[in-house]
């Protein structure tokens, strides 16, 4: 299933593996470490701040760990492997950061809550916010087109262009795209129109600012659309509205493109999304890049590089749409984004 692209400019784990001559020394050091457990290692220490305990965090962090496993940014340093130290927000770690700030090479926040908590503090350590929605960028003072620097992010959501590129792959002959925006996604209106037009789509955008109006707005937009693209806006798309949206779109014979696997299970014909593992893999890429960079700078905030495509063949079939396989769609999307 996981067929996400591996192409990357960051060094692959093998390249950084210690040479044969280093092994004896490493072993010796390891032995010493065993003898002296209280002694801190010399490798970079990365503080991971999570909003608490959840499956999503765990999956993401497992993926980060797997990604940096065996990585050593500085072969000359003994015990050079970076170490992830995971703390929950309730640990009080933020209060102590001021005093022990210098001990950390990088702080990785996981989830919006941790990102917000850290945002409120003056910290001199570079911070990488992960698993946050793009819509939180402004609130967190992250500029999407920002410079490289000491603050960055890996978003959860997909770049708009990737989602839009999915549409011609699903409905090559139909061009009317409906997009329903709410308070969270309103800012995307211009981008949706512009990017959509570039891909040859006639974009119909409708904005809703009251949850009660979603049903009517959906009906209106469905009457003028061949495809409905769902963008992550809790006012428009939530567990309560989705029932009517799916049923109305189905009866209007307009396929929905969702933004998570759950949407495809619910009835969307397709979705492109990043799993926590996908995000974790991207985060580990960034950590390695960061640690290998002598200037220790983070790149600009990014959308997840790795993603999955899922399609609902049964809904598509019922709507009379012939779909390529999810793997095929994914490959074509990856090809469109280039190496």
């Amino acid at each position, binding site marked *: 299933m996981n067929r996400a692209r591996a192409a990357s400019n960051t060094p692959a784990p093998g390249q950084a593996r210690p040479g044969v001559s280093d092994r004896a020394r490493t072993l010796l050091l390891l032995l010493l470490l065993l003898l002296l457990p209280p002694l801190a290692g010399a490798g970079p220490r990365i503080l991971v701040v999570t909003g608490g305990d959840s499956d999503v965090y765990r999956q993401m962090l497992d993926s980060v760990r797997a990604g940096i496993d065996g990585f050593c940014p500085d072969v000359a340093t003994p015990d050079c492997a970076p170490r992830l130290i995971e703390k929950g927000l309730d640990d009080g770690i933020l209060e102590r950061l001021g005093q022990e700030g210098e001990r950390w090479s990088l702080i990785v926040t996981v989830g919006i809550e941790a990102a917000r908590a850290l945002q409120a503090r003056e910290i001199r350590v570079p911070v990488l916010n992960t698993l946050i929605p793009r819509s939180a960028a402004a609130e967190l003072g992250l500029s999407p087109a920002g410079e490289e620097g000491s603050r960055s992010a890996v978003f959860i959501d997909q770049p708009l262009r990737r989602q839009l590129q999915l549409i011609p792959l699903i409905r090559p002959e139909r061009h009317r795209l409906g997009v329903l925006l709410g308070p969270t996604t309103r800012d995307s209106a211009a981008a949706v129109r512009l990017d959509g037009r570039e891909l040859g789509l006639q974009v119909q955008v409708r904005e809703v600012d009251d949850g009660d109006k979603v*049903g009517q707005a959906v009906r209106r937009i469905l009457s003028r659309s061949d495809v409905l693209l769902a963008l992550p806006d809790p006012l428009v798309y939530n567990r309560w509205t989705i029932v009517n949206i799916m049923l109305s779109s189905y009866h209007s014979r307009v396929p929905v493109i969702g933004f998570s696997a759950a949407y495809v299970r619910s009835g969307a014909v397709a979705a492109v999304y990043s799993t*926590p593992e996908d995000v974790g893999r991207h985060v580990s890429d960034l950590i390695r890049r960061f640690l290998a960079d002598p200037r220790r700078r983070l790149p600009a905030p990014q959308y997840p590089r790795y993603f999955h495509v899922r399609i609902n063949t049964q809904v598509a079939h019922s709507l009379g749409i012939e779909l390529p396989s999810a793997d095929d769609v994914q490959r074509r999307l990856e090809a469109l984004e280039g190496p």
Partner: protein
Amino acid sequence: MPPTSPLRTPLLPLLLSGVITLSPGTVGAAPSEEYFYQEMPLVLTATRLEQPLLETPASVTVIDQRLIRASGALNIPDVLRLVPGMQVAYVTGQRMSVTYHGGADEFARDMQVLVDGRSVYDPGFGGVAWSDLPLELSDVYRIEVIRGPDAAAYGSNAFAGTINIITEHPTGQQGNFLKATIGEGDRRQLFARHAGGADGFSYRLSANYQEDSGFDSRPDDGLLRSLSFRGDYQGNARDRFLIEAGYSSNRIGEGFYDDPFQPPRDADHVNHFQQLRWTHTADENNEFSLQFYHNYQRIDDHLEVEVPPLPPLAYGLGFTTHRYDIEAQYTSQLGPSLRLVGGAGVRRDSIQSIWVLNREEWIERDQARLFANLEWRQRSNLQWNLGGMFEKFEGKRGLFSPRLAVNYQFATGQGLRLIASRAYRMPTLWEDNAEFVAFLAADMTPVDYLYKTLEELDPEEMTSYEVGYLGDFPRWGTRLDLRLFHERIRNTISDMHIGTIAGPWPIPGGEGAGSYMNGGHLTIDGLELDLTYEPTPAALVKLGYSLADASGEQLKDIPGDGRVIMRSLDQAVPRHTLSLLGSYRFRGGLELSSAYYYMSEMTWGGEGTEVPVYQRLDLRLGQRFRLSDSDLDVALIFQNLGGDTIDFMNSPEINQINIWTQRLYLQAQLQFH
């Protein structure tokens, strides 16, 4: 990959940041990561998906809100004129009979009608009390009509066809809505709706007031008040609940101006229902639902007549019925190519009427049923459907209604279907137990029978074969459904006269009485066409045509002298039935639409007579205005532009004739935001 800017061009961020700073109003709080990974309700599960039309084991006509609006119809029966092969008659200005392939009187007993999965078929006299339903057109989301028997899925009474009326989900109606109609025929209507909801619960409450004076030639005024409620609750990702209830009271004029036995009078109708459904989606491939409903219908209609030299007599057509129904259904996607729908249900129908059944006690009839349909996609372009329903009615032998269908797609968007099925029509409680009596008004002593059933009736049995073609050409905006059918009905329940039935004091000149007996047959061969043409989203043409060749006969009279007189049924089905609708939406909110209906001469049963060719031309001119806080839709509706048309009843010599004259209505609809 180099760290890419999330936005492609350098221009966009600038543009966007401009939008951000300039955008007024609230910016929504960013959702948490849970939002992206949360479970959603399983809505379009495999079990719930409809077969694509090309794979459907039936001919289906779908009428959506656009068609409903374009038709200019003011009630559901008029909308159904758009269905190929469907005949609609106004028995009075307030009572309609909607039948498929004719063969009906004032009660079209051969069709199943469901509203949100609840049968509204009247167990007493059969058919549907259309104008009593607490359901206004504005709440209808779509109507799906299955043309041809579908007893395998919907049980006996899904005999000639099935009408599925689906009301709109309240989340699509949020806010307040008002509709007012005024026009000729003293029509005044005010409909109001409020829809709201929170936390997974959404509801609507609709109220309707409506009055009109019916046919100019008859004392058939109507005054309807109704109230209906629908609530939908999504308990969690897997459980949802539907609750509906409605109440209507309808005062309608009955009788004739010049008939001393049927003088003008008012009948009071009360109709209410309650419905509850729980649907549990176990996973993507398994769904279970449990439904309960109750329907109530009461008609108060009785009168005293004084026709000297007879003493004052009392008789009536009033009755009360209940229907209680519970059904459990299980749907399972057994594999990529196999789907099973199965279930069981029980029902209790009951009726009480001193007037037409001559007894105080309730008559009850229970039914139990088991049904299943197996859908097998043998290949991607070849599907089989094998279904059947077994029903056991109290006091009747068990019935099995099977259906076998095969669909084959020989080219993209084009397919053939072959269907063979058998269906039954159970006699209604009235047909089975009729004892319609004229009483002495003074002390309610039975005098004479007007109707009396003498023997236990068997169900009518239909065997149907169909060859269908469906072509879907999205590029041309065209969909064509063509159907050739052969229907054979045996054992027809004949509405007849028996000369030997006599009450204690037979009324002179009224020897014998009406009765029901099995005896007769009807064969209908025909062709049907359902064409939709949507060249652009603004333009719509819909054509429905049916050619039916009917032949058959049924019992008409057993005078008592040894003769058995049959009635020909060759004209019970009109040879041609046609509907043609065209609609165009102009820029600026103007919509112009017109519909034309044609029906060959035919003979209606019961109170109905032979009627000449029926033609009707309707026109609707609508303009939509966007106001600051609402959408206003104003329409002028012309009905029956062609002038006088005779409907259902044509006995001018006794002044019993339904004549439609031209009607002009003005309608305004206001949806508040």
